[in-house]
């Protein structure tokens, strides 16, 4: 691994084992899963069996008659607690339980509450519902013009200025139509030597965190406590308070460790439902989803990307991007994906003339939201497949073609934001060098052909967002850091403790991290989009500096000379005469940001940092079966300076292997809106036999000059290049181009057969 020199003070840049390592290997780590409270009711959700329909009736009588059933609740009951029970981060479009209509198979329609989870599960089988079926729409491109309309009226949440023009819009499935216009693409196409146009598609997939979603709400005196497996405790509190018309301080949200998130556990998932149920029955209520139910809850966008480029003298002079995002029945964060990722659709290339239309669409599939990359893997899949096709057609080496067009430091990205601290070329060079790209390559023999491919991508940080942290130094000099960032496996607890330790000059292992508890830990926008290291990292560093400054002031107020050797423990004792007192440091961070102009989509400062990642693969294709074997995979990323190189390396490796599953086999299959493979028996995720024989993960030497200790996010970067690198390698090996994911043996074999004629 290319680890750069360690940090001088030694706490950041050190491969500290995760602080919670011991609890995790002994099975004693806290998950919401473990929480049981007295008087708690268990629940099971009754779900829609039709993709689009008007609810005519729901018969809960047989379920209610079952011994041990406490109550059965429908959408109408929810309205007695929340008159307008619609939630969501971008649109207030999702009912707590279905009202009037159902919009996808698996949508929650009713809930059984029982003393025993087995009884709840049995009772739910006794509920029946009648629907008047409506014409559904499933495909994102068809949804643009379809007569089937998922939501009669659009209901943007009002918190995002760029959604305001959508308020009250009727009879459309377009939930957001983001545009960017730079230069004149038509003129570029007219003046070009060559024009290339392709369409690429991606399939719908699911995060499948191994800890299925789970939430528990406990009603109190004019208050509510929610234990939830959430990536966004602050958002949960704000949104639940909004629904109930309460001040924030009456809602308490606690999050222990998460058994994986990957974007699935963001915003509100089960929390609104358990909150309403707990208030309705005045008892604690727990809802634990099964693996199958997760597939009906949140997914990754299927997409269609039409991309057209003009080439003159080997340079890309113009690029038109039309991206259609299949958002499913509820917007969730889809409109953010559409915009915040949409503006990078032309790729990390220096292109004068760009036109982007990125369109979020409602369909009658389960909702789509954020999944490790926030739309970027779908975009890179298309633009890096396209880039490879152009290079091949022009007879230029694909790495050379990329280098000729790459977006360099100081040059403006499509939005007009100048590139800074984005080691795009270094990532490309690192991979090419590791692969000995310029040297001859063994192409295999007989029926097994070999090929290699490379792809790079980049991502802006979701901006502008806020993080707040508290560092509390106790009477004996030990300290804790209080933050609402959720450690879902990415190692944020350890990284934040390292920042505190570095700033205060103490050992990381002695810093305690207080897990999210909104009664105690301050606001954090959410744990998403690889934002924590940068945003929360800054807040934690500021909080630690604030504490350090107060300790210096305390020493001065006690008449001690500057630079005195007294530790905090002695200072407290000197001031209070005994072991007592606190020093509380507070840090708050929001980066500078300029909102894109509504007409052009342009902004001079669209992101505080860029994430850069790429992948190179060497593969074998069995031409008799279409089977693709990854012989070697190299992932490289610019993440600034690595706070914890070992954790960073596992993030790169894990992200790339997750994307490998999305690339080669994961696919939600449907029959008239019903997911037919919603279980691990039929929906395969990568197992230990699926990992490449050789996998290397490189931290490219770089520094994020405005980052805390030179660092920035890394959780998603290694997802970017995986899919197109493999498609490019398949093309290299057997001369066929796949334009639709997943790249299954069947699709490879069919393409080989089609080529033979």
């Amino acid at each position, binding site marked *: 691994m290319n680890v750069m020199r360690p940090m001088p003070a030694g706490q950041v840049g050190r491969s500290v*084992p*995760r602080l919670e*390592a*011991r*609890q*995790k*290997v*002994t*099975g*004693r*780590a806290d*998950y919401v*899963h*473990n929480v*049981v409270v007295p008087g708690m009711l268990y629940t099971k959700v009754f779900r829609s069996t039709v993709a689009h329909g008007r609810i005519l009736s729901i018969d809960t009588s047989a379920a209610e008659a*079952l*011994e*041990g059933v406490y109550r059965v609740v429908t959408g109408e009951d929810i309205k007695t607690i929340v008159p307008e029970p619609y939630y969501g981060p971008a649109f207030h479009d999702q009912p707590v339980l279905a009202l009037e209509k159902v919009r996808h198979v698996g949508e929650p329609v009713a809930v059984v509450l029982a003393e*025993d*989870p*087995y*009884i709840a599960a*049995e009772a739910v089988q006794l509920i029946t519902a009648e629907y008047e079926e409506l014409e559904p729409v499933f495909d994102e491109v068809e949804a643009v013009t379809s007569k089937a309309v998922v939501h009669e009226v659009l209901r943007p949440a009002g918190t995002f200025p760029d959604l305001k023009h959508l308020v009250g819009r009727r009879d459309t499935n377009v939930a957001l139509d983001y545009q960017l216009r730079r230069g004149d693409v038509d003129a570029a196409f007219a003046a070009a030597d060559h024009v290339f146009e392709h369409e690429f598609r991606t399939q719908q997939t699911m*995060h*499948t*965190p*191994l*800890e*299925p979603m789970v939430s528990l709400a406990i009603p109190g005196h004019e208050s509510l406590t929610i234990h939830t497996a959430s990536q966004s405790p602050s958002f949960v509190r704000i949104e639940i308070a909004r629904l109930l018309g309460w001040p924030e301080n009456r809602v308490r949200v606690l999050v222990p*460790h*998460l*058994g*994986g*998130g*990957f974007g699935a556990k963001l915003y509100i998932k089960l929390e609104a439902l358990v909150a309403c149920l707990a208030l309705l029955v005045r008892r604690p209520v727990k809802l634990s989803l*099964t*693996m*199958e139910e997760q597939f009906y809850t949140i997914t990754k966008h299927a997409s269609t990307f039409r991309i057209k480029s003009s080439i003159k003298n080997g340079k890309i002079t113009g690029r038109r991007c039309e991206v259609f995002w299949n958002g499913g029945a509820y917007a969730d964060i889809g409109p953010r994906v559409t915009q915040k990722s949409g503006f990078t659709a032309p790729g990390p290339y220096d292109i004068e003339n760009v036109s982007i239309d990125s369109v979020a669409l409602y369909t009658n599939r389960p909702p789509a939201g954020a999944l490790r990359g926030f739309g970027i893997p779908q975009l890179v899949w298309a633009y890096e497949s396209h880039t490879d096709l152009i290079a091949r057609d022009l007879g230029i080496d694909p790495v050379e073609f990329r280098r000729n067009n790459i977006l360099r430091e100081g040059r403006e990205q499509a939005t007009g934001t100048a590139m800074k601290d984005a080691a795009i070329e270094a990532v490309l060079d690192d991979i090419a060098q590791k692969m000995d790209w310029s040297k001859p390559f063994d192409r295999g023999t007989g029926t097994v052909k070999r090929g290699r491919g490379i792809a790079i991508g980049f991502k802006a940080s979701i901006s502008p967002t806020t993080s707040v942290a508290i560092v509390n130094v106790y009477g004996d000099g030990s300290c804790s850091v209080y933050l609402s960032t959720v450690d*879902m*496996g*990415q*190692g944020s607890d350890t990284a934040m403790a390292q920042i505190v330790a570095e700033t205060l000059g103490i050992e990381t292992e002695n810093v305690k991290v207080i897990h999210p508890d909104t009664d105690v830990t301050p606001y954090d926008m959410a744990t998403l989009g690889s934002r924590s290291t940068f945003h929360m990292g800054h807040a934690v560093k500021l909080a630690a500096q604030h504490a350090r400054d107060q300790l210096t002031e305390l020493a001065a107020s006690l008449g001690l000379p500057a630079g005195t050797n007294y530790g905090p423990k002695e200072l407290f004792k000197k001031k209070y005469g005994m072991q007592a007192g606190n020093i509380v440091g507070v840090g708050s961070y929001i980066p500078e940001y300029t909102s894109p102009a509504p007409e052009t989509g342009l902004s001079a400062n669209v992101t505080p940092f860029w994430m850069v990642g790429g992948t190179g693969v060497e593969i074998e294709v069995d031409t008799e079966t279409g089977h693709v074997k990854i012989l070697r995979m190299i992932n490289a990323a610019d993440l600034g300076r690595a706070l914890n190189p*070992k*954790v960073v*390396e*596992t993030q790169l*490796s*894990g992200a790339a*292997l*997750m994307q490998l599953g999305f690339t080669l086999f994961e696919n939600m299959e449907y029959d008239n809106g019903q997911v037919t493979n919603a*279980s*691990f*028996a039929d929906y395969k*995720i*990568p*197992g*230990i*036999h699926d*990992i490449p024989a050789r*996998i290397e993960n490189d931290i490219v030497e770089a520094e994020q000059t405005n980052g805390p200790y030179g660092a920035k996010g890394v959780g998603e970067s290694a997802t970017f290049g995986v899919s197109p690198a493999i498609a490019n390698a398949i093309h290299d090996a057997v001369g066929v181009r796949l334009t639709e994911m997943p790249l299954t043996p069947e699709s490879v074999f069919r393409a080989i057969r089609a080529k033979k004629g």
Partner: protein
Amino acid sequence: MDSTSRQIRFTLNGRPVSARVESHLDLVDLLRRFDLFGARESCGQGLCGCCTVLVDGVAVSGCLTLAQLVDGKSVTTVESLDESGELSHVQQAFIDEGAFQCGFCTPGFVMMAHELLKQNPDPNETEIRDYLAGNLCRCAAYPEIIRAVRSAADRMRPA
């Protein structure tokens, strides 16, 4: 609900215990009654290995094992491995190699790694992959898990 509950007796991590158990209850939920949360239900189909426990020394999926069937048997969970207060070699190797991220699947992998090393003290990479093929890790810490098992084997080998 049709359910026949009955009293069962079994050995749990070396100690005799008893419980009143309904006929439909699975072993994961039974263990929860003893405040043992290391075996976890994830896929619910015996395909992910998160609920791995030993029944009479044989690794089983707790989510597919009816609790009444452990009557008279010996059940061993991940919580038994550090009863001395010391981590096992496998557990320490998992920490040293960074062989987990979210940790939800980790007890299952740790249990299976112990079983593998009992049967084969010096497994090669192929043997490790084959033996752990029934355990899933969505964080995909597989390369580190393989290294951890190799490392544990080295640590356990008599000097």
